[in-house]
């Protein structure tokens, strides 16, 4: 079999617009899921370090259950199974307002939230206990001590692994195509379907992912340098 290259399919017709739309959808899903994952990760990560046992167990159950099941299964679960449990009007509203997008964002956020929380827990546990004791003895409540002292330090410590996991989240947003979200990989496939030019379409999609991964890694490296804690090992910023 011989393959005839025709790169012009990428700028003829709608291909460019599709790629752009796909890119924007990928970025939107990733950004929203990232915020959700960070919120869940901070909450679960912090709860796993507190003295109150039920909170610790609850957070551990969330983390262990969600991170040990494939993301794809969560996508299907949130898209096909969860809506059947909702009341009828809410179900209809959801299907009219892009249920794929919300299901994909929820699945991605909840799955990576469990993975973020492990890093945040490790970050909190790496802070000497005396920091918390000092904060509490100045009269702060436990919640205030976490919010004002422990979490800001922990978050600054874990930026390198967080960068890696952020890249994973971004790449995993491609799994959303399985439930019909028109993100970047979906649009790449669409170009292939319409033009039968697989290599050209896949090259375009792959390059966009590579460039964005590089851009995210660069941005996070800058964030890391900006928020490095002076006097710590590794505060002389490391490239990812």
């Amino acid at each position, binding site marked *: 079999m011989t393959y005839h290259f025709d790169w012009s399919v990428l700028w003829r017709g709608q291909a460019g617009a599709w790629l752009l739309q796909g890119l924007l959808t990928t970025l939107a899903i990733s950004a929203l899921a990232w915020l959700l994952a960070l919120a869940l990760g901070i909450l679960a990560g912090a709860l796993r370090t507190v003295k109150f046992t039920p909170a610790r167990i609850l957070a551990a159950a969330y983390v262990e259950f969600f991170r040990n099941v494939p993301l794809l299964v969560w996508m299907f679960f949130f898209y096909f199974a969860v809506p059947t449990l909702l009341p009828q009007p809410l179900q209809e509203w959801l299907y009219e307002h892009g249920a794929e997008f919300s299901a994909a964002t929820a699945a991605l956020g909840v799955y990576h939230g469990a993975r973020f929380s492990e890093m945040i827990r490790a970050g909190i546990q790496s802070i000497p206990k005396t920091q918390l004791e000092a904060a509490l003895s100045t009269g702060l409540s436990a919640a205030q001590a976490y919010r004002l002292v422990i979490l800001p330090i922990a978050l600054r410590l874990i930026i390198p692994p967080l960068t890696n996991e952020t890249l994973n989240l971004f*790449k995993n947003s491609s799994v959303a195509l399985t439930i019909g979200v028109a993100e970047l990989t979906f649009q790449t496939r669409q170009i292939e379907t319409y033009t039968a030019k697989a290599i050209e379409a896949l090259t375009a999609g792959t390059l966009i992912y590579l460039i964005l991964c590089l851009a995210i890694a660069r941005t996070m490296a800058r964030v890391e340098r900006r928020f490095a804690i002076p006097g710590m090992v590794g505060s002389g910023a490391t490239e990812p």
Partner: protein
Amino acid sequence: MDFGVIERNWSFLLGQGLVGIGGFAGGTLRLAVPALLLGFILGLFIGLARLARSRWVRVPATIYVELFRGVPLVMVIFWFWFILPFALDVALPEYGIALAAFVVFEAAYLAEIVRAGIQSVPSGQVEAALSAGLGQVQTMRYVVLPQALRNMIPALVTQFIVLFKDTSLASIIGYVDLTKAAQIVNNREIRPFELYLFIAVVYWLCAYGMSRYAGYLERRLATA
């Protein structure tokens, strides 16, 4: 709620979907286990190449690793799905395509584990081996790699868990793994909640069991 759907399709879901015994060339484990073994062999060479002194060996290996780690697995699977039949000029079954994609993709991640494992061996070991009269290759084979492999074991188990979960993505090209098996049953019985919850629990039992095992190995290595 009708969990009878699980009971009626028990052997299809677990026999066909999870293990791979049945009418389809499928199975999560039948894909994950060979993918890890072959991926490790490829990853071993790439990991070694990344530590080579010659730039002509090191740079291509680095590009390989960075390239595959910067692209989603879904994209890699599609690449193989379109390219392999063209390149080999034969129609390949989903199993061959999925296996090739996973081996090549995982090798990039496994190479990093190999590299970290080799770098964790104290350099005094290499110097001692070289001064005992072993050659470069012999030093690597008889002194460095045996120690490095031992250090790698927990990370390898963890990577196998990732791979085990990632094989669910082979279902997008029609490979009948556990996820696809649940989809097939769901198309007939329309019981999404029960079915997807069931496979979530199956995946969970396998992955959580393995992660506990990885933790145990790590603790044992730390004390040894």
